[in-house]
């Protein structure tokens, strides 16, 4: 019977540990349960079923937190007795997590308080530092399965100021709008009433004072943007808006000074308020994701240095590594610098750097590159370069990382506003000229009225609302965009480039095939039990692949690092490992990962690990090949070229052995030919290409885990929806175009009143919100309809 672990929800094998009438998949989960149960924290399991995570081995991992200079950089507040630290905990995912993290003080009395910020997945812990060190806090979290992620990124950050100015501007505009509406209401109906006549001057000056902060604080962005646009000789959408705000304010002020009328303060404050609401709506951010990551988020904050003279170990910050330093890299630690291997057997996983999945074996004297992950035991290396000068980190000194991609992008609204503004100015001048000739007292009135009524509020709102709404829809469908402009860019693409490893293939599943003689039952059982004893990634995936066997103890077991294992049980012996280790009679085909088996001194056969392609890759390519040029750009060797060529459409270009720089330059080459490129990748090796392309999309198995800097993050499960997402982006842009037509209609109506000199404040006060709100409803309904029709939420 398959039972699921009470703590983490993983399925338990036969070796389930039963404790307190509950099943646990491993000792780690059971220990956490025990800990919680003994501390009255059993409620953790009531809020959500199986909320936990299997705790990872942490011995030695956080030793660097003994180093006071590192601790100083990490803590937010320190008065010698109390320290406050804000830690990022990627595993946080449900209300149970919030509950247990906020009840940490029940587990450790020296923790004063812990406060979770769930959207950001951080926990701020206040603790008594004289009794409890940061290392102990972090170890406690790790022990209960909430290992915080501390990277080089945390080191430089310092305290970040949150920019809340848009909220302030919006709040002020809203506050003023509401009050001005009240104050201007009596005069809309122009009742010749005694008390109204008495107080209307007071009301008008109150409105004037309310509008001051709106114009000079809330509206500043529009003036600045219009000024910048004019300086660059671009008539962007903010030019007519700024003009409108300015004219509204000046005309209203003059009107109340000379007692000509009430002015348009209500329209003025309303306009700014609506515009800012649009801006606010578009500014949807996913605070738990980061689109700006570089190597610093992946790199460790500290490393163990071995003193050559007295052989002592100390933890130093990676920035302090100097050329010639002797470093100790433990199992599953990342190499922070380029180095030479001095001692130990290295199994380096370069998947971060090259995309190549299979670990590379290195021997003493070989050169190792920064970004590689040691998989097998501890090694000693000597640094060849400092952090900034290493091979991988140098990629980030390329210009693409410092350029602002959005700066050069002209969006649809600004493209149209060029014509809109010119036409508007022509109309106002023609109308003024006519009135100067016909009735010169009306000329100024008409001129200002045209500029007021034509202020493109509805036009300026339609884009943020349709893009903002689509951004949210995409977000719910697990396609997270950096900002709303990405949707417009998605609409306009020629070429789509895919990375292979991790993008088209999945790391979660491997297809394993067996070639050779059948194993006897005893041999099969022995093989499984041997694999069980090993921590090697290949052993682990082979272990999960093989049919389950009864657990038995091995009589002898030896693991030869980087080669394989020898095990013995009763009269059976087994050797598992590389071809040379086992003594395979066949000549090894270098391109695939294999594990060979020899039982009782007879060579039995080999297990071949093939990359498993994501489901639906073929469909996605077929659908996309109709409208886009497709390229597969892989850092891997050409081992699977034939299989790929068979699977994908004929005109797909396949390139292998691409280094990170090659990928970047390939994208650049296409762009020089005038093509718009979308790059889809997953690793740091794609980072250059992601930054260079018009739209860089990072595919992620788990969006909480790190992805390189990009414009969008796509949940790997949703890969098959890519054609639908692109179509939705196209339809959204069409929606914006329709809404432009609608807002032009309103402008024509308004212009009729303005040009004929009949624009009363009450007409402006009705027309402006009416046009804005109807355009807003129109685009929201249409984008929702699009998403439903394209079935973006169906799996």
């Amino acid at each position, binding site marked *: 019977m398959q039972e699921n672990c009470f703590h983490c929800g993983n399925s338990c094998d036969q070796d389930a540990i039963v404790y307190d009438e509950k099943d646990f998949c491993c000792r780690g989960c059971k220990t956490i349960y025990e800990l919680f149960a003994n501390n009255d924290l059993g409620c953790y399991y009531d*809020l959500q079923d199986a909320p936990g995570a299997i705790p990872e081995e942490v011995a030695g991992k956080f030793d660097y937190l003994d180093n006071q200079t590192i601790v100083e950089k990490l803590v937010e507040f320190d008065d010698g007795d109390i320290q406050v630290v804000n830690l990022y905990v990627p595993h946080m995912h449900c*209300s149970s997590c919030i509950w247990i993290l906020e009840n940490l003080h029940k587990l450790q009395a020296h923790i004063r308080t812990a406060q979770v910020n*769930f959207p950001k997945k951080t926990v701020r812990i206040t603790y008594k530092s004289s009794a409890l060190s940061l290392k102990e806090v972090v170890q406690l979290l790790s022990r209960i399965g909430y290992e915080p992620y501390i990277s080089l990124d945390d080191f430089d950050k310092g305290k970040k100021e949150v920019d809340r100015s848009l909220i302030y501007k919006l*709040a002020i505009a809203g*506050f003023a709008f509401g009050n001005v509406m009240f104050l201007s209401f009596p005069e809309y109906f122009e009742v010749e009433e005694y008390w109204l006549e008495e107080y209307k001057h*007071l009301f008008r000056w*109150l409105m004037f004072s309310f509008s001051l902060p709106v114009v000079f604080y809330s509206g500043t962005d529009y003036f600045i943007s219009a000024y910048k646009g004019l300086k660059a000789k671009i008539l962007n959408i903010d030019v007519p808006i700024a003009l409108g705000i300015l004219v509204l304010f000046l005309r209203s002020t003059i009107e109340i000074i000379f007692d000509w009328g009430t002015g348009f303060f209500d329209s003025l404050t309303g306009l700014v308020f609506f515009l800012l609401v649009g801006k606010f709506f578009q500014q949807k951010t996913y605070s738990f994701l980061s689109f700006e990551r570089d190597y610093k988020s992946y790199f460790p904050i500290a490393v163990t240095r071995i003193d050559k003279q007295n052989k002592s170990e100390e933890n130093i910050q990676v920035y302090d590594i100097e050329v010639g330093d002797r470093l100790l890299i433990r199992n599953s630690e990342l190499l922070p610098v380029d180095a030479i291997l001095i001692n130990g057997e290295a199994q380096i996983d370069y998947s971060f750097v090259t995309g190549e999945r299979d670990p590379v074996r290195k021997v003493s004297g070989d050169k190792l590159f920064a970004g590689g992950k040691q998989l097998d035991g501890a090694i000693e290396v000597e640094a060849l370069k400092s952090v900034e000068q290493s091979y991988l980190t140098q990629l980030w000194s390329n210009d693409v990382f410092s350029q602002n991609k959005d700066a050069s992008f002209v969006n649809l609204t600004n493209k149209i506003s060029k014509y809109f503004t010119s036409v508007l100015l022509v109309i106002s001048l023609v109308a003024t000229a006519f009135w100067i000739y016909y009735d010169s007292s009306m000329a100024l009135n008409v001129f200002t009225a045209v500029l007021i009524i034509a202020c493109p509020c509805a036009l300026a709102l339609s884009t943020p609302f349709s893009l903002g709404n689509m951004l949210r829809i995409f977000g719910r469908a697990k396609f997270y965009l950096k900002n709303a402009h990405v949707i417009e860019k998605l609409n306009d693409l020629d070429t789509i480039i895919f990375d292979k490893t991790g993008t088209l293939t999945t790391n979660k599943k491997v297809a394993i095939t067996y070639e050779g003689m059948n194993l006897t039952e005893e041999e099969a059982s022995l093989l499984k039990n041997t694999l069980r004893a090993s921590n090697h990634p290949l052993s682990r995936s082979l272990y999960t692949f093989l049919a389950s066997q009864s657990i038995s103890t091995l009589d002898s077991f030896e693991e030869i690092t980087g080669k394989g294992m020898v095990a013995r049980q009763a009269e059976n012996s087994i050797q598992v490992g590389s071809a040379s280790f086992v003594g395979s009679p066949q000549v090894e085909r270098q391109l695939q990962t294999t594990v060979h088996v020899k039982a009782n001194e007879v060579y039995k056969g080999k297990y071949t690990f093939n990359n498993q392609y994501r489901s639906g890759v073929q469909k996605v390519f077929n659908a996309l090949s109709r409208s886009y040029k497709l390229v597969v750009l892989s850092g891997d060797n050409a081992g699977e070229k034939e299989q790929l060529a068979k699977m994908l459409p004929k005109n797909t270009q396949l390139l292998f052995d691409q280094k990170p720089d090659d990928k970047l330059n390939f994208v650049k080459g296409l762009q020089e030919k005038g093509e718009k490129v979308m790059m889809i990748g997953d690793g740091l090796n794609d980072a250059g290409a992601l930054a260079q392309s018009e739209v860089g999309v990072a595919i992620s198995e788990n969006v909480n885990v790190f992805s390189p800097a990009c414009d969008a993050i796509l949940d790997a499960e949703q890969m098959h929806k890519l054609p639908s997402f692109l179509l939705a982006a196209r339809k959204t842009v069409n929606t914006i175009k329709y809404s432009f037509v609608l807002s032009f209609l309103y402008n024509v109506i308004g212009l009729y009143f303005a040009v004929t000199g009949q624009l009363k404040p009450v007409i402006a006060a009705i027309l402006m919100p009416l046009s804005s709100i109807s355009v807003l409803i129109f685009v929201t309904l249409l984008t929702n309809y699009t998403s439903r029709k394209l079935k973006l939420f169906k799996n």
Partner: protein
Amino acid sequence: MSVIYLLLALSILVALIFFGVFIYSVKRGQYDDVHTPAVRMLFEDELVKEENQKQSIKTKD
């Protein structure tokens, strides 16, 4: 008749006070995370319930 001036001044003052409080709370970061407090609010009850159950078990013993 100047009571209307007083009333106007007072009403605007009250509005400004609320506005100031809002700006203050935004500045203090109270609106930075609107999700967690909503979840946290529901915890207290369950904690109390659990403690009650524990006590009742103890009394049985």
